[in-house]
């Protein structure tokens, strides 16, 4: 048996893993030296803190109605004021953060799993299966993403669940195409050829040799998709197709706030709007940096 190809495969794999580890350490060091990335990370961290712990520490129930406290401006008692039926906007903001960030995470995970699986299978099988999968993905891509999500929501009943499913559906094709092209690229590398020559099964090669190389692509895409998902759910809530009464989702809160902008109740819509802006901007910056950080030939190597 020849030791050359096996050793070459192992060395190459070890080198790739070492590069990845070094890149991760560099990423951590880079965060501290990049003001924009540091700010984005801190902002996202703060929103996560508010989402997870905010309403545990805060004393108000986000759905508690108090008609004696309607349209109160921001104060010490209500840091973000109250809405038109006396609900505490800060408590609703925190719960809205929980909903938006959780749904963002669900969309990212499920989109990556399903889209990634489709891309890997298509890339691995090739031929008519590849064509079938990719033409299906193309047909989904033909629709503007938000319109497709709206169609799913309207078709299956309005609400957060169907809105989330609609948004997941719109992210699957992007993951699928990216993963497929990565699979085709990695498949042609010599260590994969070597594994094939040694008689390893296709599934084994996919799982052990190819899928790990998709990680950085998936991470970068996920960071971008997270921001999109948060915005899409808010957009569906804004037009009444997402969260329903009394769920405090940021998009629906902005809609409620719009009715009060000209009559003086600016805080109802502005604070969730700022939350949305911060969440999406922070994840966009992180996604932008992630691409550079995980590029093994990138400028961030010097860190």
């Amino acid at each position: 048996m020849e030791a050359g190809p096996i050793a070459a495969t192992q060395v190459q794999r070890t080198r790739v893993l070492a590069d990845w580890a070094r890149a991760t350490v560099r990423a951590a060091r880079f965060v501290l030296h990049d003001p924009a990335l540091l700010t984005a990370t801190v902002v996202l961290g703060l929103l996560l803190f508010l989402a997870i712990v905010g309403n545990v520490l805060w004393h108000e129930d986000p759905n508690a109605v108090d008609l004696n406290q309607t349209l109160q401006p921001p104060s010490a008692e209500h840091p973000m004021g109250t809405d038109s039926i006396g609900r505490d906007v800060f408590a609703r903001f925190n719960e809205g953060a929980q909903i938006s960030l959780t749904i963002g995470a669900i969309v990212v995970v499920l989109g990556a799993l399903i889209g990634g699986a489709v891309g890997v299978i298509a890339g691995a099988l090739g031929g008519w299966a590849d064509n079938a999968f990719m033409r299906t993905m193309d047909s989904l891509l033909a629709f503007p993403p938000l319109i497709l999500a709206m169609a799913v929501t309207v078709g299956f009943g309005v609400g957060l669940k169907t809105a989330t499913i609609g948004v997941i559906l719109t992210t699957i094709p992007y993951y699928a195409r990216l993963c497929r092209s990565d699979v085709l690229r990695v498949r042609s590398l010599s260590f994969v050829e070597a594994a094939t020559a040694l008689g390893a099964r296709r599934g084994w090669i996919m799982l052990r040799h190819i899928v790990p190389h998709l990680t950085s692509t998936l991470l970068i895409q996920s960071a971008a998709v997270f921001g999109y998902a948060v915005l899409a759910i808010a957009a569906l809530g804004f037009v009444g197709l997402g969260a329903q009464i009394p769920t405090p989702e940021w998009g629906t809160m902005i809609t409620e706030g719009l009715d009060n902008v000209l009559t003086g109740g600016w805080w109802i819509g502005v604070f969730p709007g700022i939350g949305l802006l911060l969440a999406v901007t922070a994840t966009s910056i992180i996604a932008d940096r992630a691409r550079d950080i995980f590029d093994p030939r990138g400028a961030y190597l010097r860190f």
Partner: protein
Amino acid sequence: MTVRRRSSRQVVSAAVLLAAGATAAVFAFATNGSAARRGSAVSNATSGTLVVNINTGPATIDPRDMTSFFDTLGLNFYVRLMAYGTKRGPVGTRQVDAQHMTPYLARSFRVDKARKVYTFKLRTGLRFPSGVPVDARAVKCSLERSMTGIGSYFLQDGIPGNLTSITAPNRTTVVLKLKQPDPSILQGWAQPAASIIDCAAEKKQAKTWLATHEVGAGPFRLVSYQPNRQMVLAARPSFTAWARRNGLPTARASRIVVNFINSDSTLLLQARRGAANVTIGLSKRSVASLRSNNNVKIGTYPTTIQEQMLLPWDKAPWKNKRFREGITYAVPYQQILSRIAYGYGKLYFGPLPPLMQFYNAKLSKPRPFNLNRARQLIQSSGVSTPVNVTLTIDEGNTVHSQIATLLQSLWKTLGVNLNVQTLAPADYTGAMFGFKVQSAIRYDGPGVIDAGYYLGYDMRTNVVGIGKNINLMSIPAADRLLDRARRSLNPKTRQSLYNRITTMWRANSPKIVFYNDVATVVLSRATRSFTYYHEPDMRSWSK
């Protein structure tokens, strides 16, 4: 260029772009992209044209098919046999007086002893634009046409089959015969459905042509109409001359531009700036924000409309009378009126709203908010809690969603779990009239200001010609009293009968009445004359 300098520039640029985009989006949404219309509206408001902004456009301007307040804009193109009287209103305006009906096209009328035969003598000299005279033949064919559509319900004052004959023995006489006497029938003949059209001109057109055109001889003619956007009316000289000769009110504004603007923010902005002389349909919250604005006057007018919650009797838990009663004690009526309706309403609990002739304030006192009493009644009703109820509301209706959210939070403590379902307008209407809702919040009231007419479709078990009442309530004893009240010509007898109906209605707690709505109209300082009608007759509107 180092990585750090490039990255901070990128961040700053991105932040500026995002902020600019967000600001543009907010303003685009807030103004509803109506900048062009706003510009022309401002110039119109200051010139001789009266500018009217309304939040909803008509679905049709065919008199035979008009049902909503917005549809009835079309009555301004036509004359009718009768018209509503007016009385003094707030802030120097006038308002409709349903107790005094006045002849319009009719010069006079007499009624036989049995009050079943009405003989109208018509004024002469009015012609349609085609030259055809507005005479008894025109009245006969117009009314017969309306009898073939939804208009027949209004023409017969909600007693289908009551108008048995329409004859024109000569050019100036119309005879209408009823099956049973109806003291309020004259209101039916002031309705848009009783509008006199040029039948010959209408017959030459397609079936649905009249939904967007007019063939009348009334105070205004239709200059242009873009459905759901704008309608322009101009005073009709032939009507003006005829009305002057006959001592009738003429159109005071030579030209009226009616804009249909469904954005509350845009309506508010235009009202504030004086770009509109008359604003109808502004939300109560927006009207309240104008209270301290010296550029406008706010007219408030009683209506027959209520914000109510249906409790369909064929569905659990509303089948249970005690449960229904209990739930009516679990509503903070005063707070809803003051905080959600901003005080523009009146509290009562009974079958007849305060504006109606036989309303009894003593018997219709508002139900108090008493959670303990509510809990007691619900617990003793036999209905096991927790109980799940789906409450259907109209999409985009802020008042509905606020009330629904409030009740959802409050009723949880009583073991009533409200699941709020928001439906688009067409689905909402379909669900309600298809009797598919378990409960719904409804903003509704009659177009005819008559107790018998209203209870005829809102309370009667079997609504003749329509089916069941929308709340599926059934109080047979009250139905029998209603039949007697509608036939009686004695006001005292009628009052006594309606008092008994009120007592029975309250004992059954058939639905929740949040409040009787008060109509709010915002008038610019330039508006000189305005009369509020529940069906907008714009003759007296001017600046």
